[in-house]
């Protein structure tokens, strides 16, 4: 690992963060974060509450733009392109960089409309047939189609928690993103629904770059290839997941993952 915490691996880089500092008003949330997110890999961000993991991923698709007091310094690139450049349309950016949240948040619409919404506003379908195709394939890729194909008109909120979360993943996939950011996507789910989402993450990896924030060490170990440990707004260590969980190089990483913290 390089001292800057960037890390290195043979996979090509999808997202780079260089000297990223984030402030909420006077309070600094991230300090000189340098991190590479590799293509077609699952990168897990771990660390205690308030360490800046969520702040970091919300910078990648500029979700923090909607927080008035938030200021982002430094550079974050997607395929080499600065996502904070003036010409970048955050709405387009968020189509390329989708997000799944802690609590499933389907729109108060039908299952079909939840998935069709994005492609429709981004003009991705020229006909109803094309839209149907996108909805069906997205639900299928999210592993939900078999369970809902006969009731696409039912409310998204009528589904179970795990199904709702897969619906949100289908909704993110529907606009053909390149990156999927997941902020504790299983924290509200039971072990079976969690296992389904984890299996899904494994399947989606070949098509998307995935960043997952999780408080479950075992989940990070199971689903990711690379893990970054955040602490007090800094990246303490980043490396291959197997290395982080068998031989963390930084004492703070070891103390956190083994529960010796504090």
């Amino acid at each position: 690992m390089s001292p800057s915490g960037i890390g290195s691996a043979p996979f090509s880089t999808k997202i780079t963060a260089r000297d990223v500092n984030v402030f909420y008003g006077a309070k600094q949330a991230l300090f000189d974060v340098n991190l590479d997110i590799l293509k077609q890999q699952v990168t897990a961000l771990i660390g205690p509450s308030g360490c800046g993991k969520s702040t970091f991923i919300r910078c990648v698709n500029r979700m923090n733009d909607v927080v008035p007091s938030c200021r982002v310094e430094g550079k974050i690139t997607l395929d080499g392109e600065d996502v904070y450049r003036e010409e970048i349309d955050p709405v387009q950016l968020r189509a390329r960089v989708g997000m799944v949240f802690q609590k499933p948040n389907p729109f108060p619409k039908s299952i079909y409309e939840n998935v069709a919404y994005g492609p429709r506003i981004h003009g991705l379908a020229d006909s109803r047939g094309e839209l149907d195709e996108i909805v069906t394939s997205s639900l299928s890729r999210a592993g939900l189609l078999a369970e809902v194909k006969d009731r696409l008109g039912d409310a998204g909120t009528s589904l179970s928690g795990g199904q709702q979360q897969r619906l949100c993943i289908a909704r993110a996939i529907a606009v053909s993103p390149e990156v999927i950011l997941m902020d504790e996507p299983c924290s509200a789910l039971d072990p079976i629904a969690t296992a389904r989402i984890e299996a899904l993450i494994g399947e989606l990896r070949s098509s998307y770059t995935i960043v997952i924030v999780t408080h479950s060490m075992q989940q990070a170990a199971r689903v990711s290839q690379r893990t970054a440990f955040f602490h007090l707004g800094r990246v303490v260590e980043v490396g291959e997941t197997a290395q982080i969980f068998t031989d963390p190089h930084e004492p703070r990483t070891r103390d956190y993952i083994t529960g010796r913290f504090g």
Partner: protein
Amino acid sequence: MRVVDPALLELRKQLLRMGSLAEAILEKALTAVWKHDRAAAREVQTDDLEIDRLDVAIDEAVLRVLATQAPVADDLRGVIAAKMIATDLERVGDLARNIAKGALRLAEHPEVAIPARLRTLADEVQRVLHRALDSFADGDAERAAEVLEEDDQVDADQDVVIRAAIQEIMSHPELTSQGVDFILIAKNLERVADHATNVAEDVILATQARNVKHAAKLRE
């Protein structure tokens, strides 16, 4: 204290107990050889049962801690090392039993002088085992690394004992049975040192996350 700590401490306690039993059983088996002490040789057979019991208990404890605590980092390496060390110490118990069987056979024949080099080999092996167990008790990777260095000397000493015994058999065929037992005892001692070396390797894995097993062979 973390939730996982009592389980790890218990595992360590069991291993330390197993280590001291392994040392004691080896000492008793060798005493049986040196002193033609049949009673001691027979005790070794029953003493080994306690080591076997601990081996089973450690297996169960390791499974339990892996299933319930999902240890990572140094905790995980410590648990894996504990399992491997237990296996090696259990083998030391078996080897001591073999040596004790040799003592029983030797006691059936007229007493012959114990080859001085066999005693030297035994001292060396007991020292190696003791140092390996010390390195475990103290989590001392440096001392563990020293143990690894000593294995070549044990191998060389074993060869000397075996060659001398063969020589003795050739010049005194009537002492063949005793000569063969000295060879077997030397072989068993050398295997004890191998297991002590494994213990030292596991200490290095647990403390420094370095796998040094077969290092020389794999470098070739």
